[in-house]
């Protein structure tokens, strides 16, 4: 890695929350337009964040805050490992760890809303996390490595001279990653643990002022991480094709999420789990079996 490379990675890390912020801005604007409203300015999430940071501090207890910080720390860690071209499984587990901390934070206040939110959040983790890790396993089976630098180097699926598009060889894994992204961005139909109209934002109900802002920051990082995950599915030897492809892929997924969010109603948690076990799991197993069979040379 040369100096410029490292500088770009650090820059990407710093810009990650801005990306998340922008995502929610565009999301709100587009949603408003779909509903025939004018909608807030594009940078509204950032204005909200600034305002929250300036509010007087009100807390419930301090363990609650420790877990909020741990949540953000582990999300940043996951993104950091991603930008260091690290191990996919470690990235998935550190994303999982951040979810555990978020749930523990919600558990550490004695509020039924918060607790229901935390329990739902855990179940959501149980439903989605294994699928995400299995998607990582399929990437490993296809490329022979869990480490991102090797994945970029080794993924071979020739397509019009661009020799590395995982998307075409692993469509099911890609679908699963999109599913995970929808769940983790708390978008309908999977906004179960923070259902604002039902359990008053569940996991986040007791965070306020600057501390709520910190959890928002964590959420922005989380979003960037998930879109980074999506972007693994496109890479190329030629730098500009690689960047353009990754951005296009992310944008397509973003639009897809928006459409799904606006056209569906919230599911219940048990239906999410069932959806994950009955549809997501069989799909990914089929994908793994296909990879194994094709690697054995049964199918060319």
């Amino acid at each position, binding site marked *: 890695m040369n100096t410029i490379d490292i500088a770009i990675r650090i820059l990407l890390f710093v810009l990650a929350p801005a990306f998340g912020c922008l995502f929610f801005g565009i999301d709100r604007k587009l949603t408003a337009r779909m509903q025939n409203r004018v909608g807030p300015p594009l940078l509204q999430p950032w204005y909200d964040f600034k305002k929250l940071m300036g509010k*007087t*501090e*009100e*807390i*419930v*207890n*301090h*363990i609650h*805050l*420790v877990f909020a*910080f*741990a949540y*953000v*720390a582990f999300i*940043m*860690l996951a993104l*950091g*490992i991603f930008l260091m071209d*690290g*191990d*996919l*499984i*470690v990235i998935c*587990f*550190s994303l999982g*760890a951040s979810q*555990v901390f978020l*749930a*523990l934070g919600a*558990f*550490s206040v*004695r*509020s*039924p*809303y*918060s*607790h229901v939110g*935390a*329990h739902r959040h*855990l*179940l959501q*983790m*149980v439903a989605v*996390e*294994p699928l995400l*890790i*299995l998607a990582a*396993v399929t990437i*490993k*089976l296809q490329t022979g*490595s*869990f*480490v991102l630098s090797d994945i970029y180097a080794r993924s071979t699926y020739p397509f019009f001279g661009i020799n590395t598009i995982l998307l075409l060889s692993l469509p099911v894994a890609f679908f699963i990653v999109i599913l995970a992204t929808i769940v983790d961005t708390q978008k309908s139909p999977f906004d179960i643990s923070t259902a604002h109209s039902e359990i*008053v934002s569940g996991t986040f*109900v*007791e965070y306020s002022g600057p501390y709520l802002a910190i959890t928002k920051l964590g959420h922005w990082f989380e979003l960037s991480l998930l879109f980074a995950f999506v972007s693994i599915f496109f890479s190329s030897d030629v730098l500009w094709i690689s960047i353009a492809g990754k951005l296009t892929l992310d944008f397509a997924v973003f639009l897809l999420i928006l459409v799904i969010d606006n056209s569906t109603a919230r599911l219940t948690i048990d239906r999410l789990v069932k959806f994950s076990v009955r549809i997501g799991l069989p799909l990914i*197993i089929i994908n*793994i079996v296909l990879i*194994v069979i094709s*690697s054995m040379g049964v199918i060319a």
Partner: protein
Amino acid sequence: MSAEIPVLLAVAFPVLMGILCYALRNRRSIAALSFISSAVLIATSLVLFWMVRDNGGGIRLDMNEFAGIPVSELIMVLDSFLMFYFLYIGIKLKNLPTIIFAVLQMIPLFWFESQHQGAVTPSFYIDSLAVIMVLIVSIIGSLIVIYAIKYMEHDKKQARFFFFMLLFLGAMNGAVLSNNLLWLFFFWEVTTLCCYALIRHEETEEAIKSATRALVVTLGGGVAFALAIPLIFEYFGSVSFIDILAISPALGLAFIPVALIALAAFTKSAQIPFQSWLLGAMVAPTPVSALLHSATMVNLGVYVLIRSAPAIGLAPWLSFVIAVVGGFTFFVTALMAVSQVTIKRVLAYSTIGNLGLIVMCVGINTPLSLSAAILLLFFHAMSKALLFLSAGVVDHEGHTKKITGMEGMIRSIPVLAVTVVAAVMTMMMLPFGMFIGKWVALEVSTTRPELLLLTGFVIFGSVLTSLYYTKWLGLVLSAPEEPEHPPKPHPLSKLYTIPMFTLLAGAIFFSVFMGPVISELIGPAVAPYYGLTPMTSDNITFFTPMGWVPSLLIFVLIVVAIFLPLKMFKSIPKEAVKPVYRCGEDFEQLRLKGFFYEREVPDDRITRYANPIAVILLVIMLGVIFI
């Protein structure tokens, strides 16, 4: 220095102290003797560690005759006594399986002893794997014994209790150091006896029932072991463990005894379908549970498996089935633990599952997976002992055996609650040792297509593990608002806190300084059979050939996440602490209880499905050899 003295101190000294405890019978001397024996054991284990380290490999020690005592014959005589004692217990309990198993053990054993001379050289073989076990048994075991001095202070039968506890430690040390399979078998049976006696301690109907079940299952395993001994001599020509491992037998049938030993190890380590005895064992006083789950009993099974790994590895089908049994156990127990309300039952399922993971790693049988197995064994012992000791204090100070009873413990007994939280974190959070082990197991299981089933088991098992541990912690943490004048929490006894904090410090310290653990313990233990261990750690990053974890960075993040808010909290005025949002309702009578999903994943129903599957797997395990 010769190794005879430390070996005697590790094996015979605790037994001697135990006998003295039994003879003196008064509380003062029992406490003193337990302390002395703990101190000596800890020192001895460290001495053995240094000796093996200096020697640069295994130490062969011949003790068939020592100071004029024919040790070998003595052990044979004691072994025969033990067999007859089991028979006597069986007759007294009027328990047919016990009687049958006791007799079945005698037949191959006595036949073998009548045909062959029982002594082999060397009688003890002390290498790094044995030293890791001696360290676990002696240090963690001793800490548990110290804890038990306080825990059992009002018990009527302390003399008997401490006799068996110390005998247990001696027998475990004997078992892991023995190179002679007959001696190993003898110590193995002594641990069975100790386990039975300690579970039975309370003498309630339930205790007797559980103890009998434990006896039947582990004696059944003993039968498999006893059958394996003459067969091993038949096919390998020796009952010396190191000689057996040096031979690669030509005959496929030679794997029958190996499979039998694996079967025996499964009973000892409570793998499915033999898990019921360990679940029943929770009726025993908590120090006993802690000892069974972390320092002794269950570790012996996986130790023997790890030790036999080179022989297992020669039969690919056998090792595959062993891996499947382990992975299956890990997954199913994690699922079953989700619905448990009793603290010790959750912990028991967690133990069985983690041992399953170790068994799976042995079955995968590569240098990396073997290293992961030893790593898991090492870190699991510390974290699980800590969790059990905490559960004991919760029982004595918090007066509850249920997870629901721990609701809001962060306010009532903060020290204990924080310990429990930290202990659980060392069990599941990255980058602690247990996580590293799981991560390596997961990645190593993707190396061969036929192992991908295990990848699924590990992934779902790990995620479910975080589910059941997190929702438990959730109840511990859900504190009610602070009252105006909070009652001063009653301080915990030093005899509780010192062992607990030592274990916690150990679990954290060795996770942070993983480098020396790998280079001093795991590397040398794997080296003789598998060459260099592929794991490395420079304490900053943990590397395997498949990936890496930035461990130091994560520890720094954890410290920052804990202390940054703590620092900010000081600047927050007291008025800023507000009650939770009530939505106009009254939360005074609020009981949270949590969710246990008893309807969705009831453990009894899962057991009904899991046990037949596991039995089929075992039949395959014993059957594939004939193919």
